[in-house]
């Protein structure tokens, strides 16, 4: 029955063969079930089938989530995971979680967001009785993703053995290093934001850009809300000059908010604000409504980028997690 994850671990299972996946995840779940811990698995349907076969009757004690369905909920999964896991850990005793997303089919914006979320998980769940095992298929994942997974997990699991990751980096450092913030392109639709009265203009600009990018109405309305929250933050807490830039990167619609202030923690893009926090709630709204979100600073000030993917054919609309 090895390895037994001690409460509060965040490990990566890097595998190439289905058998490695099944034995690694299977052992992890079995020790959780033996300890009467709650267990949650997010995987694609095929892998859920493998695990059912491996666990036999014990599989009925595991809460399986179809990754395809969860991924269809895009950026919103972040909130659900953090909130559910956080609450679950506090109220329902120790928790075991297995997650995997097929990043090979995701746009780079979402891959970066996912990896930064992995780094932030070390902060979000630090000290909580939650054991997370994140599966990475090295036979399909790009080399950079595997390398990043070693940097975002303190320990890795291979062939049943736990190894300390020598490449692990502090979450804030990882997030800052992976920032892809660049100057907005010259053809971006831009607006200077000087006062609260400019917010309506910003929303009108975004609505028209979202319509040009053929964003579904719900996504457009979510993006408008997220941008308004981030701009309001910039007006209330940031410093002039402030600006909104809207542009496309490939088929991803980017809403880029700049202000001359400093001191917005890049981790704030990935973590819920503390209960008592006066600021940061707007960012948390943005996190829930956008496909990807990042915060970075440069000598010119603070940048917040909100990203929305185009609608994909047949995509399920988000529902409660």
């Amino acid at each position: 029955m090895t390895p037994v994850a001690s409460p509060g671990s965040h490990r990566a299972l890097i595998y190439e063969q289905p058998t490695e996946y099944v034995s690694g995840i299977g052992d992890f779940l079995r020790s959780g079930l033996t300890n009467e811990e709650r267990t949650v698995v997010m995987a694609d349907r095929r892998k859920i089938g493998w695990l059912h076969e491996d666990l036999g009757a014990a599989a009925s004690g595991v809460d399986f989530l179809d990754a395809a369905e969860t991924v269809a909920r895009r950026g919103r999964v972040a909130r659900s995971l953090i909130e559910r896991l956080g609450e679950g850990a506090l109220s329902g005793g120790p928790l075991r979680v297995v997650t995997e997303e097929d990043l090979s089919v995701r746009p780079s914006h979402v891959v970066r967001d996912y990896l930064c979320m992995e780094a932030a998980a070390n902060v979000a769940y630090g000290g909580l009785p939650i054991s997370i095992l994140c599966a990475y298929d090295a036979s399909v994942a790009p080399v950079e993703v595997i390398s990043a997974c070693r940097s975002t997990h303190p320990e890795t699991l291979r062939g049943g053995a736990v190894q300390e990751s020598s490449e692990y980096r502090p979450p804030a450092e990882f997030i800052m290093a992976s920032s892809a913030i660049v100057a907005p392109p010259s053809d971006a639709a831009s607006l200077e934001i000087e006062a609260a009265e400019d917010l309506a203009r910003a929303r009108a600009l975004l609505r028209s850009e979202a319509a040009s990018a053929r964003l579904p109405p719900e996504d457009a309305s979510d993006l408008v809300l997220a941008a308004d929250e981030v701009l309001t933050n910039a007006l209330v807490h940031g410093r002039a000059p402030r600006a909104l830039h809207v542009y496309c990167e490939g088929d991803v619609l980017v809403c880029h908010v700049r202000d001359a202030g400093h001191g917005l923690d890049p981790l704030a893009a990935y973590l819920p604000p503390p209960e008592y926090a006066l600021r940061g709630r707007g960012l948390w709204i943005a996190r829930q409504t956008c496909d990807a979100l990042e915060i970075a600073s440069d000598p010119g000030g603070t940048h917040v980028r909100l990203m929305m993917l185009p609608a994909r054919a047949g995509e399920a609309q988000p529902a409660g997690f």
Partner: protein
Amino acid sequence: MNGVGPAGGGGVTGPGRPLDRPRGHLCCLYRDEAHRRRVTATFVEDALGSGERVMYVSGRHRPAAVLRALHEDGVEVDPALRSGQLVVRPLDDLPSARPLRVDELERQVRESVDLARADGFPGLRLATEMTRVRDALGSFEQLLAWERLAGELRREVAVTTVCQYEECLLEEAEAVLIEAEHTGAAPELGVVPLARLLAVDRPFGLRVSGELDLSNRQELVRALEARAAVNPEIQLDLKGLSFIDVGSLRAIYEVASRLPEGGRIVLVDLAGPVRRVIDLAGLCHERVEIVS
């Protein structure tokens, strides 16, 4: 700002800057009837956007004609008339001997401000056709004395006023003196406020349409508090609200949390985007009820 390109999204329009909105002790020396109507419509629209009561004291124009003109100029007068948020009355209503005394006018304004608050409005906007006031006061000197006092009153009781003068009836020197007593000229841009905060009597409360954000959040709070001061059980009708930010939503909950025993805010007719913000923000309070 470096790197900020030209404003994109050509043709994008938004609400006016604060300077475009009527505030203070304003005057309107109108050139013609169209000018006067634009100023009046802008003034009334802005009052309805702030939740305040707006009183139009008519002179040469009969109240029915004033209302008809407002309606033609796109102002939704009926609901505002029903709840008393819009009041149009002729100067002749003032029960006073002639010549009218300045202190009598002052008493009238103070009473109207008090009455507005007692009726659940956060403040009073006053538009007055001044030609008849001048006649009633009996002299230009008395008129000027009134304008000076009105300026002081404006600061003391926070009433916003537009004094309308027919430009052709003023001597040039008079016009200069009149203008000097005001904080500025009343705007006539037809700027539509971002939201409309309409008082409703049955059920008692407020009907909000348009958009609520950082720019008009304080007006929403003032309007809600003024309604709650009369009756702490408020229905907040949000059917026509197409956007609300989290801060404004939280402000509603904060007003609710300050209500006295038995007070509550009932949110009704929430549009999709408003519902979404409520879900995302995860707010809840025992004094806020949501009715679909």
